[in-house]
């Protein structure tokens, strides 16, 4: 009977393993009021949440002119300092769109500068009423943003901390007139079985 027992051992181990296979790695936010995340990566809902919160904060608290003047803003692409390939252009677009829709700013766009120069050059040669060089309005403020990530592991727990910082710089004075940051924390616990 020894040989039969010997055979049963690996079979029992496999059966036990299969029974326990239903448990999976769990992923959760540190903040229980947040929606259920799918992973600890910086996802689309994080992107939307961050852009919305930051813009709303800026509209509410930044020391902007109250006389109805709509300052001219340029926005620097968000700097990705994380360990993920994030489409920061998309975050930049979300912030700009929300600010434009607030009706409080006008925008200059440096990302389409080459096309603009090409168009102006064309107008000088071919248009009846070309826009003259040097007519553009100078930006008064520059918006810069950083997204950084710190990951820590303690045993089975992985803690991922994202910090999004937005700075509004006054180009006339060189001072930073406003800044805010939003933090997102996600935790992941590897299951035992």
């Amino acid at each position, binding site marked *: 009977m020894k040989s039969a027992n*010997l*055979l049963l051992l690996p079979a029992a181990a496999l059966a036990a393993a299969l029974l326990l296979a239903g*448990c999976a790695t769990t992923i959760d936010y540190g903040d229980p009021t947040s929606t259920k995340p799918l992973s600890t990566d910086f996802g689309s809902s994080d992107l939307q949440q961050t852009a919305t919160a930051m813009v709303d904060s800026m509209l509410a608290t930044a020391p902007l002119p109250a006389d109805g003047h709509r300052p001219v803003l340029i926005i620097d692409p968000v700097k990705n300092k994380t360990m993920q390939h994030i489409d*920061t252009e998309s975050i930049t677009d979300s912030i700009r769109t929300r600010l434009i829709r607030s009706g409080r700013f006008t925008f200059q766009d440096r990302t389409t500068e080459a096309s603009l120069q090409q168009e102006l050059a064309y107008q000088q040669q071919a248009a009846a009423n070309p826009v003259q060089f040097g007519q553009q309005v100078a930006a008064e403020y520059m918006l810069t943003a950083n997204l950084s990530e710190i*990951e820590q592991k303690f045993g089975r727990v992985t803690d991922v901390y994202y910090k999004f910082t937005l700075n509004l710089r006054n180009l006339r004075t060189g001072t930073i007139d406003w800044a805010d940051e939003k933090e997102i924390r996600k935790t992941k616990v590897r299951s*035992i*079985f």
Partner: protein
Amino acid sequence: MLPRTLHPIAAPLAAALLAGCGTFSHYPTGVNQVVLGPMDRGEDLRPATAELVSRIQGRDEVLFASEAGRTAQLYGDYAASRDAFDKAIARTAAQGDEAVFAARVAAQQASAVLVNDKAIEYRAPAYEQALVHHYQALNYLGSRDLDGAGVEIRRANRVQEEALRQHDAEVAKAASRNDSSASDPLADAPSETRTAVSKAYAGLDELAGQAKNSFLNAAVFFLSAVVWEMRGEANDAYIDYKRALELAPSTPALQTSAIRLAKRLGMREDLADLSRRFPDAASTPAAGTEAYAGKAHLVVMVEEGHVAQKADLYIPFPVSGGLGAINIPVYGKCPSPAGRITLHVPGAPDAPLAPLCRISSLAARALSERMPGILARQIARAVAKSAALGAAGNIDGGHYHGHGHDQHSGGADAAVLLLSLYNVASEQADLRSWLTLPDTIQAAEAWPDASSGTATASLRWAGGGGIDLPVTLAPGKTTLLYVTRADWAFYSHAFVQP
């Protein structure tokens, strides 16, 4: 009808037969023939890459994805290389997220005890994981995507930091346990086995040489620092130059870079320390000063040879009822191929290249760290097999070969014979490792005049031979020239700071 005792061997035999026979069933041989041979001869690597890509699945997904990523990059297909490395990265991340005692892993481990270690899914050691990100960063540089390169560099650093943290924790745990025999799988092994294993360890130590651990790689830190400099993040660059310098203190490119940035960042105490340790580099001017006006930063990294390959070593392991053997992977002696190379570029003093790392040493150290686990599985297997052998010859409770006239004896003999053959045939060491990696990586830097926009960088080997490569230079910007030499074939890539 099959004798009752054949049943225990039927399943493992079938598993062994189904384990894959083809070119790559013996890992080093397959890669040598299909990939490394053409690589050494400078042949088109596309067919080899296609072969590797077709194997990115199953147990060896990470391994073949890493090999394919590397070969595709050598011939400049950055997009294909990126796809392959992405697969290796994703699979490695998924392995890290698996449950601590995942059923799938448990099944593989059980299967490994019955067959051999090759039944276990390939998990890249930390030095390979860091190098996947290292080469992936080059793919992003090749696509002029500095943000993407930055992400990969951070990931490479995370792998190394995490490995260091785990290593420290294990050392602390071992120290607090204060009982080394508790984790020694050979505690009850016969003395001849212990002696043979000690010799194998000594061989690994010899190849590991100066490598303090298996996961900190100065070449990865150096590339990291170069990417930070390209991104204008001097502080991050400085930290990684310093980390690299701790691992490869005699490399001039690291000494001058660390001092150049220490001066610029006003790190007074560090600077005093660096100047004392490296007097030859102490007069390096601060970054961003007049001394560099109109000059380009040319960084050259040269890889040579192929990383050492594992070989198997049979070690006697007497078990009750007869002789047994275990088969473990080892690295033999292998001389470093690193040549003495000088970089010559017009308008700058000649710069000798100096070693950053030897990947074979990291591999040997990694194998040495994994050896207790390998030995534990090997011994479990030897014991299981000897028990099966004993059971096969033990029909009706008799002793091995004790029932020559029993009506089952024909079946018992057949079972014993088959099991013995199976035991020998299935006893294969796990020789898998990322083999298209180079053995050594060296580096140098120069600051040539950039006014003409281009220059020819010449690399000359002391023993003869060399290569001239055209590079694009821009004032105040970095150009990274990355050269791979495999035998007499050269592969080169120039990455210009966007």
